[in-house]
């Protein structure tokens, strides 16, 4: 029998195969460490033959995953439908995308056209393109009137002649100019922190700072009315977010206690925890009670990210912001974010904190790493502005006098609600809902009349949201009328503009008056008087 088989033509094939197997085996045993693998396979097979099969499958799976390209389509997903080439061509022909951008509707177009355009320099009394006349300016954020400052201009020109305009590179690659370091040091000294870091746009500062520290799994406890850039920063960070009622530190404490309870119950690991809020809120001008806030965050061991974009350079005796106003050392705030563009009338933003906090951002702050550094002449202007603020307390006094004068007039006007703090140089004016006695949805006083049951911390909507009865579009229209009426009387004011539909919660429309030290008390009173008259005129027309 054997001899007959050995004569079949298959014989050389068999011998070839067995030889190949043998040589493969020899090669395998020559490999260093092969004995270990062999022993492992043998013993595992002995213990449980099924496991070998499983392991082989697992191994093949790993190989397959490794070979799979990152960009390859997930063709094996359940919902994948196999089409023939012809069908795909048909589907491609059929597909009609929506237009990339919807044209503006009439109202939007009108609002865009009605945007104030200044001819020539901006300042307390700029010339407007629409009227061709000068107007008293309560719209531009020129709080301490550094915008037209001659000394700053001179310094900027000197800087231009030494550094040119652009820095031509990100900070990591020869975009760090000595004047950037100077301004960083100036800001840190001004506030009394260890260090500071500059970003080249105020808006992008906090949007970069938050994700630089907060990662997935971390906890952020934030005010329900935080500004848009903060919302975006939190979105990028992918952290777990809990909300507390706007400017209500009692609610904050409840949320903090709740979180700690949950953590103990789940025996979760210690994660980074942050409180994110603003000094003066962009949305309504209310002001946070800093000493209480610092007490809470220390007690519950949270880190505080405080956005002082609208309070730095505008409150406190010399404009150092909330820390100066409340006499809280800035060192107690882990990440203090401010705007060089608003507070110092130059450009960009900063984050001040410890050396470690700042250095961490130099590697992890997206807006810092991936962007060109700010033009050196703006950094020089910022440094000069700090110098001026330090040495001229009268600037801030003038501003605060104007704020008081304005509030004295506005607080008496019927039909409106001013949620802003009396000391805030940014005054928001909201319309009062007809019939409703409570004020705006964002105001803490609203919380007082509500039942005491707390809002759900996982939702940005507060409990009383169901009672909000204002109509965004209608109020926007009324306020726009007020803006135009005031302009006709020679006062430039603005609504708070919003990216409607993109904020987490629709914000109640408001007028935003920005006081400035550039106007005298008389002029401020006159300007605010015009606003008052315009408000009354438009509101009475509406009622009729």
């Amino acid at each position: 029998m054997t001899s007959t088989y050995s004569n079949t033509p298959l014989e050389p094939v068999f011998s070839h195969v067995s030889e190949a197997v043998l040589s493969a085996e020899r090669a395998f045993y020559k490999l260093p460490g092969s004995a270990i693998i062999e022993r492992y396979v043998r013993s595992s097979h002995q213990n449980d033959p099924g496991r070998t099969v499983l392991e082989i499958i697992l191994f093949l799976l790993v190989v397959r995953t490794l070979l799979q390209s990152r960009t390859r389509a997930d063709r094996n997903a359940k919902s994948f439908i196999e089409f023939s080439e012809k069908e795909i061509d048909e589907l491609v022909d059929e597909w009609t995308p929506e237009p990339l951008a919807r044209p503006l509707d009439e109202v939007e177009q009108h609002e865009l056209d009605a945007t104030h355009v200044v001819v020539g320099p901006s300042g307390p009394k700029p010339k407007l393109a629409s009227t061709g006349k000068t107007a008293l300016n309560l719209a531009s954020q020129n709080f301490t009137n550094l915008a037209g400052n001659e000394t700053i201009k001179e310094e900027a020109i000197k800087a231009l002649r030494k550094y040119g305009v652009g820095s031509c590179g990100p900070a990591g690659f020869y975009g760090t100019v000595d004047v950037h370091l100077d301004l960083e040091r100036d800001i840190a000294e001004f506030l009394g922190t260890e260090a500071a870091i500059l970003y080249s746009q105020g808006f992008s500062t906090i949007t970069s700072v938050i994700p630089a520290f907060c990662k997935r799994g971390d906890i952020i406890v934030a005010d329900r009315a935080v500004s848009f850039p903060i919302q975006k920063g939190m979105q990028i960070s992918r952290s777990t977010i809990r909300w507390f009622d706007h400017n209500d530190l009692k609610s904050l404490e409840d949320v903090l206690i709740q979180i700690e309870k949950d953590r103990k119950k789940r025996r979760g690991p210690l994660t980074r925890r942050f409180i994110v809020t603003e000094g003066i809120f962009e949305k309504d001008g209310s002001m946070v009670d800093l000493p209480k806030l610092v007490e809470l965050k220390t007690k519950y061991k949270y880190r505080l990210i405080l956005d002082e974009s609208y309070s730095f350079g505008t409150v406190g005796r010399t404009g150092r912001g909330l820390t100066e106003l409340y006499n809280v050392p800035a060192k107690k705030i882990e990440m203090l974010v401010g705007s060089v563009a608003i507070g110092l009338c130059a450009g960009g933003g900063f984050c001040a904190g410890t050396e470690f906090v700042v250095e961490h951002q130099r590697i992890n702050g997206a807006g810092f790493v991936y962007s060109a550094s700010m033009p050196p002449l703006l950094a020089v202007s910022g440094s000069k502005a700090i110098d001026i603020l330090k040495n001229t307390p009268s600037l801030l006094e003038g501003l605060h006098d104007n704020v008081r004068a304005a509030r004295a007039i506005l607080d008496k006007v019927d039909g409106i609600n001013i949620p802003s703090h009396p000391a805030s140089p940014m005054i928001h004016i909201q319309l009062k809902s007809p019939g409703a006695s409570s004020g705006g949805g964002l105001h803490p006083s609203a919380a007082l009349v509500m039942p005491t049951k707390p809002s759900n911390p996982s939702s940005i909507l507060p409990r009383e949201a169901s009672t909000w009865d204002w109509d965004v579009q209608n109020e926007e229209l009324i306020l726009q009328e007020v803006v135009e009426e005031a302009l006709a009387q020679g006062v430039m004011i603005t609504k708070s503009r919003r990216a409607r539909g993109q904020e987490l919660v629709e914000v109640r429309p408001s007028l935003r008056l920005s006081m400035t030290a550039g106007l005298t008390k008389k002029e401020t009173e006159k300007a605010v008087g015009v606003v008052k008259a315009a408000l009354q005129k438009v509101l009475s027309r509406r009622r009729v």
Partner: protein
Amino acid sequence: MPTGSSLPSPMALSRSSPSSSMFKKQQSTPQMSSAASYLSALSQADARARGSRSPTPTATPALSFSSSVTTSTEDTVLNEQEIDNDDGLALPMRAPTSEQVFSTIHTEYGHCSEEAYRYTSQHPQGTVLPEHVEQDPPYYILLSTYISYLLLIILGHCRDFFGKRLHPQYYKHLMPHDGYAPLNSDFDSFYTRRLKLRIDDCFSQPITGVAGRTIQLIDRYSTDFNYTQKFTGGHTRALNISSYNYLGFAQARGGCADVVEESLKRYGVTTCGSRLEGGSSDIHQVAEALVADFVGQEDALISSMGFATNSTVIPALVNRGCLVISDELNHASIRFGVRLSGASVRMFKHNDMNSLESLLREVISQGQPKTHRPWKKILLIVEGLYSMEGTLVNLPVIMQLKKKYKFNLFVDEAHSVGALGPNGRGVANYFGIDPRSIDILMGTFTKSFGAAGGYISGSKTLIDRLRVRGYSGAYAEAMTPPVLTQIIASMASIMGVKPPSTPRAIEDDTYRYPGPMPSSSLPQWVSLPPALTSGLEGRDRLRRLAFNSRYLHTGLVKLGFITYGHPASPIVPLLLFNPGKMNIFHRMMKDRKTPIIVVVVAYPATPLVTSRVRFCVSASHTKEDIDIVLKACDEIGDVLDLKNGIPRSERWPLEEVCARAVELANIDPSVEH
């Protein structure tokens, strides 16, 4: 780094011991015999220029060389008693002839009048853009690179292991303490602490003055292995082949800077506030109209930060139910914007049109995941010129695909606008494609225009929508007047300005892309010198940049280096591979007699193995500057074993490369590859 080469340890090459450097004395560049002879040649040339009533096209009476240098700052050469030209950077190698009058400062914008050293950046019609080839190094280099990283990681973990036990105080910030979790976890920061820190002296070195052709470094050294850096108090002038200064507009002197000074006097530093809330001024409108004309679109929107242009506009374009198709190497700002938008994202292989087409077929036929509803919009986002690879987007093929698959196209021209195309209008101009056939052209002003910020351009409907819906209009501060003026002046000088039209030719006053702009588009107070308004200097800049890019690129290839990207690209990456070679290369370049500063990039900006040097060529470089860079690379390349591109027999010696520069620059890439 401990591995990679048998050179002395990095510390031995440190800047704190300037005289001990072994590379200092290796070369000396030909230069003027003395400062005095150079000065006399200059003054003669200047006198002649003043004497003649009709200035030469490149000269401006108001800004002749001597007048500009005598009014210059302390950084420029002539205010010092002795001109220190030891490094060969302060003075040109050739004295100007009597006809030549240069209106720029040599350290900011190099003097080069040789017409042969010019090239027009344009895609040869009818040819196909060569595929992006990633040339592989020999296996031993790959292997040693992997071993290097392995060693670094093992060593790092060992140090962490012992460090935590022996010196716990250094690890305090990584440990939970006091009930606070650490800000930076041990694991997350490992790469930064144990790998990046070793080469930290390559990054973030502060500078002073203009980042033009040369740059003034503020000298620093570290005594504690880069934990901290100390300043020596001294400055070093170095040849700058690192800044994004493609057209050389980083200047503190000259026509553009003069206009910016005028605008600072008129407008001040800021317009206070966001565009929609009282921060708009007439100069914004002028600049936006000009940008739209420049790129050939209907309208444009300016944002005060380049990064934010992408991150605040993309969310206004797409949202849930839309799909973004993104090149895998797109910039972080694009990813940031897409993440904010909530749209789905799919990636395709870098610049691979086949991969793109098969992805398009799949996503359109499959529709949205699970529901299979058709996508509301599909937005393809690509970059014109990739900042780490130097590759050009294959726009001609994308335009064909766009016709067939009807997606919207967003081209990020952050690096390509100004730097590419016969008229400097970017990648569409380079390929001769109508810019209006592209939905959105985005770009930045940081790179080619010596300014800051970015723009978005497209149809009027689209831009108006973005003005209202984009984040920056409502929330971000408006761009500042000096920056806007720099943009206006530099763009005007690239486009050229038509003289005011006579009444009978009123129809001539409209703008036709890419012709010169009508003078009515400029504000009255902007007065540019004739060299700029004629567009001659702008054209010269474009052509110098194109020549320099091609010369450096092909020169490096001929010397035997591995480079990536297209020769037309002003970004020229030279591959190093070994992590240890990065800081050695950086230091050896900086410690030469003519110091050269370079940018080295590694993981995570690039794949792990392909660490590289990235040269950014500028129009401000002269041919001699490129020679210097090539010579430095040639010498260092031999020491560091970097010449793995082409076999020895095909390489050219340095002298030949320098001598046949014009020929090299004219090599057609589609034939070469």
